[in-house]
């Protein structure tokens, strides 16, 4: 177990830096998590992060990267529904890294 400080609040995380309780998530902690990875969150990042939170809300799981790519393509357009675009935004792996910033557990099937 670890923890992250953001805006004066403490957030519990697991050993890989994912939030222990997704209900504690807010935008501040997402920004701080991104900064730790030397990543600045832009509107394009937020599109994916918000999409993941909605997906989890509906299905109670995080999508695998292949599923994410397809679903983003449907929702945000084919120019964004490809791994090149998503890996440019999230170089550590779109599902893994974006799920972390979204406060979700690590995606099923993700090693």
């Amino acid at each position: 177990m670890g923890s992250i400080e953001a805006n004066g609040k403490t957030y519990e995380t697991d050993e890989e830096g994912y939030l222990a309780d997704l209900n504690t998530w807010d935008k501040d902690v997402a920004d701080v998590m991104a900064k730790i990875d030397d990543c600045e969150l832009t509107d394009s990042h937020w599109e994916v992060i918000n999409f993941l939170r909605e997906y989890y809300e509906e299905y109670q799981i995080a999508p695998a990267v292949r599923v994410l790519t397809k679903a983003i393509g449907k929702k945000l357009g084919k120019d964004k529904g490809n791994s090149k675009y998503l890996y440019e935004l999230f170089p550590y792996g779109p599902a893994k890294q974006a799920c972390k910033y979204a406060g979700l557990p690590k995606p099923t099937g993700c090693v």
Partner: protein
Amino acid sequence: MSDAKKFMYINRKAPYGTIYAWESLEVVLIGAAFEQDVSVTFMDDGVYQLTKGQDTTGIGMKNFSPTYSALGDFEVTKIYVEKESLEERGLSLDDLQHLVWEDEDEDYAEKDSIRLVSRAELADVLAGQDVLFNF
């Protein structure tokens, strides 16, 4: 896909009370993420896993029934439900969630995932698989 094996996951137990149903669902999603040819069967008490309107607040377990709707996204489009198992429990297809998948090649047309099969038909389906997992 030529190297893909045909994996069939058979669910026979009620959704809560044991961990089998949830474990099976996770394994199915993992198998699908590795682009295998995945099918799923619900029979015996396993048909209860797909019922609508599950509420787990009284038992302190996560209600994972919404996750079955994600199977289509994971390209798990062959979901077999045994007709006799439903009938023996006084259930029909109307009591189950309506599971669909979207065909990208047909402008995301929604297609039914659930195939209602008789015990005899199911035996043929199982005989055609490479790998069977029982949960």
